[in-house]
């Protein structure tokens, strides 16, 4: 039998244990610490505690996919030639050999066909971009639904919204760089959008394109924005976003021992170093698999951009899809005054709707704080059901977004579902307005029902699955009290504040204007909290617990009595 030496003590007790020689990693850390003072700087942060929940990792997907974007993007810059110099393609893709195109397009084809691993990296870059923006969006939804945007985190919410905007612009500039037929059509559309702005439109377009579309400077300019300006801004905002995260500390779900003053979880080192670090490799791996297996933006099929050509299925990447959808469904509204055409059909969906949507998004935390009058700090999250109006607002916004988004793919829906594109357009015109209202009402009532359900579980316990027959022959299912931790999580929420009545405001004797504003606010607050189910009072809970004990006792005696014999008859 062999002996595992590592488990044998190096001392028998009579002689002191011999210290092991320093490990390599420890030696390096020590070397660095003695010269840079890292230990002091890191002591606090290495042991910083983060709470554990899968939904807290959605922002991490965005972070890691951004890292993948930086890595793959750097690779692509080595071969991409951001120039509109006109060349004849002479690479290995035969069906385009000898075709007249820009250097940008030719070098994109070279990356795809002649650079080793080029197509893989190009596709990884594109998939990572799609996932980057998507993960920012679901991260935003998580933060909103759980109330993590409340004081003191409002500014981090604003930074997040700006990141979403920058990510979208970054995506669009990248989509435009290859100068293929699809992206050229997109740039042409962008040129049209700029020109639709009243008075300054043409100037703006000439300024950006360096003359009339397409000119020969748009690709180099987009390239500068895409690889320098926007990534730098995004990096700076990500840094600010994460510093604020560390400064505010992470929010956590309520539970036993978790309060507004502490954070319960695991330390950064080693737990999150491993979890987050491992997650980076998973994100990288998933994107690499997608880049290797799934086609994205096969530019050789589109061919070079040529204003005389266009293709069916010309859509932007998904994150620009919803304004495109609005553009597709808006009626042809135009006004002609003083020899000027105002293209409402372009202005409203492209120049008005997206900035408005972003403003609403940014304003949400401030609006809610103003309506509820809640100026306290919050570090415990709320379940979406516990703030029904807030949840319903986001569901309504999502419904609007989703319907506009679907409208952006109206042609694909038409051919795949054998529908008329006209009927889809008519339906969407109404649905983008009616849909969010219906969704708001359903989501709100659904939340309230769930609140009621939580309260019932708290007061009457959960369904035990034990069926009991009473002496009269009636059957009833026994309920058992919730485990302490679950009951705690449900009761951790606050009862909603009671909004001021108009009489109370009148009685304050404020100046007329302030009274009016205060009344509007109170009215909104009443709407905000209307019909919410409040958590049970301590007395109700106590009664319920007492009742549950009694029932449990009764059940025990029934079980003891054995089948077909009955304990004391039931009270209710």
């Amino acid at each position, binding site marked *: 039998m062999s002996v595992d030496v590592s488990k044998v003590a190096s001392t028998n007790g009579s002689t002191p244990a011999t210290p092991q020689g320093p490990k390599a990693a420890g030696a390096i850390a020590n070397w660095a610490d003695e010269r840079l003072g890292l230990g002091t700087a890191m002591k606090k942060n290495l042991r910083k505690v983060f709470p554990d929940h899968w939904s807290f990792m959605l922002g991490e997907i965005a972070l890691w996919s951004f890292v993948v974007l930086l890595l793959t993007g750097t690779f692509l810059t080595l071969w991409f030639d951001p120039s509109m110099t006109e060349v004849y393609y002479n690479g290995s893709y035969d069906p385009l050999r000898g075709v007249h195109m820009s250097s940008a397009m030719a070098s994109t084809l070279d990356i795809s066909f002649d650079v080793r691993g080029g*197509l893989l990296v190009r596709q990884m870059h594109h998939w990572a971009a799609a996932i980057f923006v998507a993960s920012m969006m679901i991260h935003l939804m998580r933060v909103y639904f759980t109330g993590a945007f409340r004081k003191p985190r409002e500014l981090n919410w604003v930074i997040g919204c700006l990141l979403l905007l920058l990510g979208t612009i970054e995506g669009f500039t990248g989509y435009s760089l290859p100068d293929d037929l699809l992206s050229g059509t997109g740039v042409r559309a962008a040129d049209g959008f700029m020109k639709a702005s009243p008075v300054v439109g043409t100037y703006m377009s000439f300024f950006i394109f360096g003359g009339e579309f397409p000119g020969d400077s748009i690709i180099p300019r987009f390239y500068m924005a895409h690889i320098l300006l926007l990534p730098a801004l995004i990096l700076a905002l990500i840094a600010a976003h994460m510093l604020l995260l560390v400064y505010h500390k992470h929010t956590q779900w309520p539970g036993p021992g978790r309060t507004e003053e502490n954070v319960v979880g695991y330390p950064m080192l080693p737990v999150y170093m491993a979890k987050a670090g491992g997650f980076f490799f*998973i994100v990288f791996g998933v994107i690499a698999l*997608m880049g290797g297996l*799934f086609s994205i933006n096969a530019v050789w*099929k589109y*061919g070079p951009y040529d204003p005389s050509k266009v293709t069916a*299925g010309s859509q932007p990447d998904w994150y620009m899809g919803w304004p495109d959808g609005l553009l597709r469904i808006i009626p042809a509204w135009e006004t002609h005054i003083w020899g000027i055409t105002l293209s409402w059909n372009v202005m409203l969906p492209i120049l008005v709707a997206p900035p408005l949507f972003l403003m609403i998004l940014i304003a949400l935390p401030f609006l809610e704080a103003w309506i509820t009058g809640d100026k306290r700090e919050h570090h415990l999250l709320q379940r979406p059901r516990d703030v029904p109006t807030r949840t319903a607002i986001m569901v309504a916004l999502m419904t609007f977004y989703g319907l506009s988004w679907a409208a952006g793919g109206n042609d694909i829906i038409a051919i795949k579902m054998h529908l008329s594109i006209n009927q889809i357009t008519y339906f969407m015109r109404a649905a983008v307005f009616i849909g969010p209202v219906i969704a708001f009402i359903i989501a709100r009532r659904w939340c309230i029902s769930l609140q009621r359900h939580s309260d019932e579980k708290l007061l009457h316990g959960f369904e035990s699955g034990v069926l009991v027959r009473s002496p009269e022959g009636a059957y009833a299912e026994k309920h058992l009290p919730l485990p302490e931790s679950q009951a705690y999580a449900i009761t951790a929420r606050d009862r909603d504040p009671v909004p001021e009545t108009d009489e109370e405001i009148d009685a304050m004797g404020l100046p007329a204007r302030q009274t009016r504003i205060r009344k509007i606010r109170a009215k909104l607050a009443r709407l905000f909290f209307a019909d919410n189910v409040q958590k049970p009072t301590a007395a109700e809970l106590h009664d319920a617990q007492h009742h549950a004990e009694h029932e449990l006792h009764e059940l025990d005696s029934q079980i003891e009595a054995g089948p077909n014999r009955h304990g004391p008859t039931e009270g209710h």
Partner: protein
Amino acid sequence: MRLLNRSAGRLSRHRRGPIAGVLVLLCGLLLTGGLYAALAPAQADDDADNAALVQEGRELFLVGCAFCHGQNGEGVLTQGGSQYGPALTDVGEAAVDFQVGTGRMPMAQPGSQAPRKEVVYTEEEIAALAAYVGSLGTGPTIPDGELYDPETVPEDEWNEYVVRGGQIFLANCTACHNFEGSGGAMPRGGYAPKIRDVDPKHIYEAMLTGPQSMDTFSDGNIPPDDKKAVIAYLTTLNEAPSYSGFTFGGLGPVSEGIIAWLVGLGGLVGFAVWIAAHTTRSSKKKDEAAA
């Protein structure tokens, strides 16, 4: 040689003579008559064959087509005055060969567009139907194989054909049929069908006759050789491997967006749940042992 020249010269001396015109006329008449005598009987045989084919086609037409297109292919109007079945008097044989040969005709039901489906007539029957409809008026005939068959392109010119065809395809076809021929939507429930893996003859005939909502690309618009180039390009698309992986129908950014969300983000959120479900313990066994 000199002898020939001399005799020709002698003949030439009489070319302005009084009987020269009469003689030339006589020769011309004899030649025409002789040729007619030699060739006319054969043509009469062809006519008889063709008449039989037309008659066979007419019989098929009366059974399968006349309900919508009228007993003599004159078309049928609805009560509202719109077309129930259009007149077929000048559509030509190529149109019949395309519509019936791809299963679009006969239609199973009225609709915004006749979908491609299983072919119901045999090749002989289609030829008979084409002959009958062709006999009703003018219109393009069924093209010869050498016009459309990409196999007839000389090997050293193949790539030149493909490149030219690709550019013609992108300029004229992709606006409706999509950049790789996956199809696209048209107003009021119409659609430009998927045109991958379609018989070259049918692609050629479609360009020639402009079926349903499609434009007609006459030979003046796209010469036969360019049509063949487009077919060569589509053949290349069909035969080329998918360099970039699964294309999800080749529909462009919409399908890519769906994949990014469902596979990409869906998968990553799944991993997030998986990671969060595992605590600091490196394996479940240890966890259970500790419990």
